[in-house]
Structures are given as structure tokens and as C-alpha cells.
């Protein structure tokens, strides 16, 4: 499962950091850091966090459609 936070919207209400502390952490007084990939076991927590965000800044995966067509490996 993947997520991203629109940090332009985020105002540091920190609801997510209380509801899913393994995924969202406040860094200093206001800045939010998050882990982009999370385990299926945390899904309920993350969805609660996304729903609780007062500015709706958390986007959680709606699709796990694979991206086929990588033509080689670099790096």
C-alpha cells in the first residue's frame, strides 16, 4: 500500500500522527514526515488517519494496477 501527503495543504493538525504513529511523524513543531509504503496490517489505521485529516491532505492508493513495460534495469 502506498500513500502521499499534499504538504501544501497540510497545516500540522497532526491527527494522522496520533492515529497512525508508525506511518506519520511530526518533525519539529509543524513539519510532517511520512513513510510512503505501509503494510496491509496498518491499512485501517492509515485510512482512519486519511479520513480524520481536517484538510484532506492524505492520498491513499486506490489501485494496485501494475506498471508493466520496464525495458531494462539501470543503477
Amino acid at each position: 500500500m502506498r500513500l502521499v501527503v499534499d504538504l501544501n495543504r497540510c497545516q500540522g493538525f497532526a491527527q494522522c500522527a496520533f492515529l497512525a504513529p508508525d506511518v506519520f511523524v511530526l518533525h519539529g513543531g509543524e513539519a510532517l514526515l511520512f513513510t510512503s509504503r505501509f503494510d496491509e496490517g496498518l491499512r485501517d489505521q492509515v485510512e482512519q488517519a486519511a479520513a480524520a485529516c481536517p484538510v484532506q491532505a492524505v492520498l491513499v492508493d486506490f489501485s494496485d494496477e501494475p506498471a508493466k513495460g520496464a525495458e531494462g534495469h539501470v543503477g
Partner: protein
Amino acid sequence: MSADADVQALRRKGRIVVVGASLAGLRAAETLRDLGFTGSLTLVGDEPYEPYDRPPLSKQVLLGMEPAEDTALPRKRDIDAEWRLGVAAASLDRAAKHVRLANGDALPYDRLLITTGTKARPWFHPEEAALDGVFVLRTRDDSARLSRKLAAGPRRVLVIGAGFTGSEIASVCRERDVEVTVAERAPAPLVGALGEVVATVAARLQRDHGVDLRCGVSVTALEGDQAGRLRRAHLSDGSAIDVDVAVVSLGAIRNTEWLSGSGLAAGPRGIACDAGCRVFDVNGIVTDDIYAAGDVARSPHPLFGYQFLSLEHWGNAVEQAQIAAHNMVSAGPDRRPHLWVPMFWSVQFGVNIKSVGVPTMGDQLVIAQGALAEERFVAVYGYRGRVIAAASFDSGKWLGFYQQQIETGASFPPDYAMVDRRTDAPQPVDPAFPDPRLPTHEPTVTLTGHSPTERCVQFIAPRA
């Protein structure tokens, strides 16, 4: 037949090619499908990875909170696309209407969207750039390599250039207890983006956190040992520093080389397009089948003197991609302008820095809330008597208000009561940008509409 004449057929069975498979390309593809586009959709990306998020690469990933390969972007929906990843676009033939890939394949299109973004500006000396220990930071691979190096405990890191990326890297180094020197040619970090008044606070943050910050100097040479490992950097003030890692963070270059010879108005500053994301050709004639969005695009903005803005901002990539996608499959009168107000954020030394508007246009500045000395404040920038931008340190919740002030052309300096205002009447000062050349025209324009998707421009006739 005009391109507008059969939009329904285009939506049903057109061929759309998106060159650039990152944030803008992905969000555009999702928007196209949302709008009912059922034709063929091809995404081309030069990296072998599906679209990933870049902001964590200089923050969470370098801090060791998550591996670089975990940064893939979440999907808003299925897009049923053909992915061509790991192969770059090599050229564009507008007459034949196809994109040629580096492996020789040709991709025909009815509509083309260019979202090729930027790449890190490399160190100017190729042999020095190839030394073991010299890095840039732009891609997932860059971040993974630098993260491994930082985890190995280097003796001292040199960050060349104190823009946002360079400052974030320095912040991570200190948090990981790695010694770091920052060399910046300007008088302070972030000075190009925010001006020296605010940049002075950024400089203090760096020094308070143990960064060896050296301003007003440039790095003249990187010296390696016989095994090709970086060991020393030479500065323009004649000094030298022993370092085993150097991160070149001197800004970005637009990925437009592949368009040379295409006849499009594409160059080092980006691809010129109109407010509807349609790309101009070199004659200044707008194309109707080629669009651009994200970091690589530059387009005129009515709130900022119709200057062509090119914005390396996460939020711009998302918004502009959605506008471009909408316009690609809409008839003329239904098209929308890209009227997003620029905004960005940065996290460094535990402080959340945010900005809205275009601070670099500011000719005056007031600290409207908080105080510089507390490293918690809102700086409001004025341009010819109206509010043009605001920047906040750990005060991001106020920026939505200032965005409204910018959109409505509110007068500057702000003359209303403020929460946490420290002086009776803030005295405007020069924000002290290094290059204060300003445009000479100023239209009065108001952004209206109930939601961002309904944005339109309303012209207000000047009083006689």
C-alpha cells in the same frame, strides 16, 4: 478538419502519448481516464521505475526512515496504460505526429503531453564529477546511493549550493550527526527564493545546528586521490577542506534536449506554453495537439504580470497536469486556464518553511505575524502596493489567508489586525533579493470561482 471538431471521437478512440512518467505524467493519465478517455494511452519514462515521489528523497530517505525504492506514488485509479519505462524519448516529428524513442520505436499520437521535468545540474568539471564521493540528488537512484553513503558515516560532507535541496541535505547530515560544510556563493542560504531578510534566519538555523556554513564563496575544484576517491575541496577564498562526500546541489536543468529540431519553443528555461498548457512553436504560434505540464513547462500567469512562470513545485505538477489533461480532450470553449497560485514547502532543521505566491517579485516585505528572532513568523511580500507572496517559518496555517490576499490583489502593507502581530504598524523593508529587476506592467486581475476547477479570470477595467 479542426482538432476541436471531433472531440468525442478523440475521447473514444484517440491516441495519447505522455512523455515523462513522473508525478505530472501519472496525474494527467489518471485525469484523462476520469474524463472518460477510452483511447490508447502510452506513458514513456527514461527511468526503469513506475512514478515515484521526489520530495522524500531529500528528507525521509536520507534520514533512513524509508528506502528510496518505497517512494512509488499512490494511484488515484487504474489507468490502463501502455508503459514504456527505461527508455527515453529521443525526438519528436510534428509532421508525422510521432515520438521516436531511444530504441528506435515510433509512437504515433493524436495528442502529446510533455512532462519530462528536470535533471540535476551536474558539476561543471566532468572528471571531478566522476570522482567517487561526488553526488547529485534528483532521482531515486541518486537518493539511494547518497543514503547508503551517509549511513556509512563519512568524515565530512560538503554541500555545494544552499538552495532548498542543499539546505535539506545539510539538515539531514546534522540529524545523522555527520559533519557538514555548506558552500554558497550568495550571502545566505535560500536568498534567491526568499530574499536576504528571511534568508538571514535560514543561515542562523544552519549555524545553530552545527553546520559549517560558508557564504560568499564558491567551490573552485574537487580533488581526488589516486584511487579516484574525493578527498579535498578548494574554495574561492583560497581555503581547502578535507571531505569524502560532496553533494552538488546547484539547481536543475530542464529536460528539453530531445526536442531540439522539433520546432517547438523549448530550451534551457523550459517549454513555453499558453495558459491552457498548449505548447508554442518557435514562431510563437500555439500548437493544438501538443501540451506541457510540470517542471518542464513555462506559462503566463495573470496574477504575476503575465510573466511566463516555470515552477519546480510538487503542487504545480499536480494542478497543471490536470488542466493539461482536461484541455487535451476538450473543445476550445470548455478549456480551462492554469491559474494555480505557486506554493511549496521545505523541511529543514526541524522548521517547516512554506511559501505562497511569487516572493521574488516582491519589492517590499513586512513581518506580519511572529518574529524573525523566534524563527516562527510570516513574511508578507508586496509588489507595487499589493500583496504578491507570503513565506512562513513554522506558521503554515496562515498561508491560506495570504493566498486569498494574493488572488484578490489586496493592498500592501496589510493594514488589518493580525493574530500574533508584534508591532503596531509593521514598517515595510526591502526584502533584499540579489537580482531585483522587475516587470513594468501590472494588470488588475481577480481569480474567481467556487472551487479550483471553476477558476476563471475576471478583468477589472481601470478607472478613468
